[in-house]
């Protein structure tokens, strides 16, 4: 297989496979969770559980004042990398061209300089979080292989994309192939790892809030 054939495979069959695994896995996981159902509550609660549920979805998005400095660092760096990731993913003109080809519509891109800043901040935040995960004794104890794997799978597309855009490393053909491969690996890993939180996190928060804010007995 020459580099062109490899690139063609990653842009075609490879991407189809990865998308299929990701979409199938995530649809299954979400729907299966929803269909698990909750035990029918025969008692009438005071007020609705929607209020506390939604409030928790919202409130968990902020840094809590009682958090320690280390806790704050995790939240701030976490936010930086999540936002940076989505800005580079959704507003780089090349990505929009790709999404337009898949979705049939696009939107205006951000200037490259803005994407550049976002990408560098994201990479820096991710590295800082990794270092912190390793240095902090509690985090380190809580971390398993999967945590480092998902970090790597998230980091690689960003890094390869950055290198591709700046002409660092191998030739464009090979670098584009690597970039797409790293994205495909990430897509495949999503349903099987903690990365699935990208779709389950808000429903989980809602459930927590609804559970905690429930007023009344359960029967």
């Amino acid at each position, binding site marked *: 297989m*020459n580099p062109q054939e490899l690139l063609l495979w990653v842009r075609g069959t490879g991407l189809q496979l990865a998308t299929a695994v990701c979409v199938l896995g995530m649809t299954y996981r979400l729907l299966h969770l929803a269909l698990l159902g909750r035990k029918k509550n025969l008692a009438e609660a005071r007020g609705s559980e929607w209020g506390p549920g939604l409030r928790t979805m919202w409130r968990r998005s902020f840094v809590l004042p009682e958090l320690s400095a280390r806790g704050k660092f995790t939240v701030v760096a976490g936010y930086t990398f999540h936002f940076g990731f989505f800005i580079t993913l959704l507003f780089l003109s090349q990505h929009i061209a790709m999404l337009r080809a898949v979705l049939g519509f696009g939107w205006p891109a951000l200037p490259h300089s803005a994407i550049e800043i976002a990408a560098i901040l994201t990479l820096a935040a991710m590295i800082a979080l990794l270092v912190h995960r390793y240095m902090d004794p509690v985090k380190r104890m809580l971390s398993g292989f999967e945590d480092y794997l998902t970090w790597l799978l998230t980091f690689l597309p960003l890094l390869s994309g950055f290198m591709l855009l700046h002409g660092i490393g191998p030739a464009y053909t090979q670098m584009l192939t690597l970039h797409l491969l790293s994205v495909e690996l990430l897509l495949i890993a999503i349903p099987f790892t903690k990365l699935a939180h990208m779709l389950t996190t808000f429903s989980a928060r809602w459930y927590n809030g609804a559970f905690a804010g429930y007023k009344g007995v359960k029967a």
Partner: protein
Amino acid sequence: MKDHDTLEHRLTQQGISRRSFLKFCTAMASLMALPPGTAPAIAAALAQAKRPSVIWLSFQECTGCTESLTRSHSPTLESLIFDMISLDYHHTLQAASGFAAEKSREDAMKDFYGKYLLLVDGSIPTKDNGIYSTIAGRTNLDLLQEAAKGAAAIVAVGSCAAFGGLPMAKPNPTGAAPVSDLIKDKPIINISGCPPIPSVITGVLAHYLTFGELPALDELGRPKAFYGETIHDRCYRRPFYDQGKFAKTFDDEGARNGWCLYELGCKGPTTHNACATTKWNGGAGFPIEAGHGCLGCSEPNFWDAGSFYTPLAAPTSNIGAIAGAAALAGAAAAVALSAADRAKKKSLQQTHEKLTVKDISN
């Protein structure tokens, strides 16, 4: 025709001055994409250069490569180079025809066995014993194998000879194959492009003549001097790519401002060739300068590499349909397994046992 004396001798006989020769060598350095300071070294090497015999075989091709070469716009250079080689067989360019033509090929092959340069344009059909293209009743495959035996080196001119090109595009009805798939025991140099840039063809010949060896090649057998960098690397519109300024259609403001054609499907980033600097039609320009993206014609399989107008970032196959089918399959699996769980739960309830997390499907 077969006087293999040195070039210096021939030039002196023609009354060409040393200064003219130096100018010629400067042009040669530029042609071969060598640093300008190498002109004196070229002069020294060329002075001793001999005239090699060249046999040119044309197989499944459109003659575009020969057209390109003969329309090459540096005539004195080319004529000098042609003075420097002895083109003993080329069935389009030679005056002889029929038996006389084939005889000149056979003579050259015999007289210069092990020393001649074999140029090939066009791909070689291999299906059904190669009957899809024959010359004088003999298949291309047969002719190639015979001529390759005594060749010092083989130059595959054009994307068809180098990578299979259009004849090999899906569904490849003739079983077309590039030279490198069929000949394994000879040095092969690929001058890809559809057609290749004329001065790249002559530049490679010049290199062989000057230094008596093939130039440094990349992993696809192409001379690095011309194919070492991508169109994108040397594109005068590159600064717009770096700034993220892209033309969205062929007639929008961006296109008029000469912005990058990436989103209009330009294959410049993945295409290795010298168009952006050597240019076409005597330096008049190259496709991107005319406002059209690069097609990637000097890369393998370029006919089957998706639409010419799809950006490189975009998938080459239908992702939406696959995603839809996967979503349906995922939903079906979830519903089926949930139903199974519920049934299990019901049966456990009847026996007053508890359903645990371990019991449900994952």
